[in-house]
């Protein structure tokens, strides 16, 4: 039995008291951190801190061990075939930029096709749009259906034009849609395309197996999965990573430097120029431990329960429109809605008066807002520390907003 109230006690920021107490419903933007992750960071800086891959002294060896050990841990976590397939980045955004700037610049040519979708976070669209513009490639976006799913007919139509790369999100940060990555990847491969997945909203909430999905690239951020800000992961298939030039130049990414020429280090170091954020990597390792202790099956069930309750209760309020897949299908715990006559920012500000933290705006998904025919939505997102009481407070807050603007 998943005990969310007990989980919540592990998160100091959610237990500061105050009136009204904090109801945190913005984990899709950034999650809170359990004491175990905070302790791991403090412990790293208290007992281990030193630069990696250089020192011969004991402390440096301990830092190496912590850093490379976490790389192995991450590889097992997403079932990569080797730790060499794990590149640490600043986050999902940097990971996707890395792929676009290295794989993209090497492989995309004038007239080539890049396929993305209208439901992308800007971080999975703009890097591809930038490189497409630079090399003269085309970028096409898969449309969505009425219920907020990718239009698979449109996807197959675009695949028939033989794209070089297909880049899309596993879970929509606005709609909560879970895209069929495995099936879409198989189709993309059959069409000869490389597949790059934005997993920022999936890895925190569901078990992800990169070998089962067979994707070429997959990116996620620690801070959305209980870990520190400023650290993320790029998974890349070994053969694809090995074919790519470096992203940035600097220390760690070299094999040999002369005044005339530099040769590159093997993967993954080739893509990790400069001193990495070792403490944050250690914090990510602690976050993975914490999530695995809770168990992804229970996490997913719990989040779906809360999201379903929120969708059903919000939809029952006259004047409230909920976007995305309905409550009774497999979907993530992200719930976007609009209240007639009250701008999403005002809904969020009035919820904040009652201690309820939600997101309002375009959620870095402006093409999706356009497709939905709205300028903005209010978004509540649920995670391991939320309880059914939080849904009650969301609903009460929305009703309060309606009363204020009545």
């Amino acid at each position, binding site marked *: 039995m998943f005990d969310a109230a007990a989980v919540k006690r592990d998160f100091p920021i959610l237990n500061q008291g105050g009136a009204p107490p904090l109801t945190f419903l913005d984990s899709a933007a950034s999650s809170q951190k359990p004491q175990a992750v905070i302790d791991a960071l403090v412990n790293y800086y208290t007992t281990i801190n030193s630069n990696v891959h250089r020192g011969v002294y004991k402390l440096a060896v301990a830092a190496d061990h912590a850093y490379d050990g976490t790389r192995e841990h991450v590889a097992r976590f997403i079932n990569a075939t080797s730790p060499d397939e794990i590149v640490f980045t600043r986050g999902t955004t940097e990971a996707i930029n890395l792929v676009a700037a290295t794989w993209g610049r090497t492989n995309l040519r004038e007239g080539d096709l890049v396929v993305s979708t209208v439901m992308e976070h800007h971080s999975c669209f703009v890097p591809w749009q930038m490189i497409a513009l630079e090399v003269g490639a085309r970028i096409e976006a898969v449309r969505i259906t009425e219920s907020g799913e990718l239009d698979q007919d449109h996807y197959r139509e675009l695949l028939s034009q033989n794209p070089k790369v297909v880049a899309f999100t596993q879970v929509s940060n606005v709609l909560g849609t879970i895209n069929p990555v495995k099936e879409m990847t198989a189709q993309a491969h059959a069409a000869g395309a490389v597949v790059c997945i934005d997993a920022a909203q999936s890895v925190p909430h569901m078990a992800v197996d990169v070998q089962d999905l067979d994707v070429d690239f997959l990116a996620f951020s620690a801070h959305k999965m209980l870990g520190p800000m400023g650290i993320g992961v790029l998974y890349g298939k070994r053969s694809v990573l090995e074919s790519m030039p470096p992203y940035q130049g600097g220390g760690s990414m070299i094999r040999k430097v002369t005044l005339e020429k530099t040769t590159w280090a093997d993967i993954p170091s080739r893509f990790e120029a400069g001193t990495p954020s070792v403490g944050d990597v250690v914090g990510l390792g602690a976050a993975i431990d914490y999530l695995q202790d809770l168990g992804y099956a229970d996490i997913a069930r719990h989040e779906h329960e809360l999201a379903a309750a929120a969708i059903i209760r919000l939809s029952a309020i006259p004047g409230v429109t909920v976007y995305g897949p309905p409550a009774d299908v497999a979907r993530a715990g992200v719930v976007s809605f609009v209240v007639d006559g009250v701008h*999403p*920012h*005002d809904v969020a500000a009035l919820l904040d008066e009652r201690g309820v933290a939600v997101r309002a705006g375009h959620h870095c998904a402006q093409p999706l807002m356009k497709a939905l025919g709205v300028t903005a939505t209010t978004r509540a997102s649920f995670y391991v520390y939320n309880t059914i009481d939080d849904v009650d407070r969301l609903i009460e807050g929305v009703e309060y907003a309606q009363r204020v*603007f009545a």
Partner: protein
Amino acid sequence: MDSIYRENILEHSKRPQNKGHLDPYDYAFEDTNPLCGDEVRIELRVDDSGTVTDVAFDGQGCAISQASASMLTEMILGMHVDEIKAMPKEELLEEVGIELSPARLKCALLSFNVLKASLYGKAVDEQLHS
């Protein structure tokens, strides 16, 4: 906690003043707040002496951005263009009359920036933020 949704804000947001368009107009500008997609357009008609004789705004967005636009149009009706150019943003904020976070301050000042830009005939971000 004090609500920023005081009566004057709600009143202006529910029943905005001078909402609509002028045809013809002498000055016009529109802009958006990229943070939340608020949109405001302001149109002015002035007489030969440069005094504002008609003003209209249109747009969509949060209550703060739309209410402040409504208040601003009331304030500038009858003012001389030179007076408006010299008007500090504090005058509008005083009228809005609520304590705003930096993010919401942008909502409140969208109409002000649009108004100034309409008179200068260009984006005036630099001047406003200097």
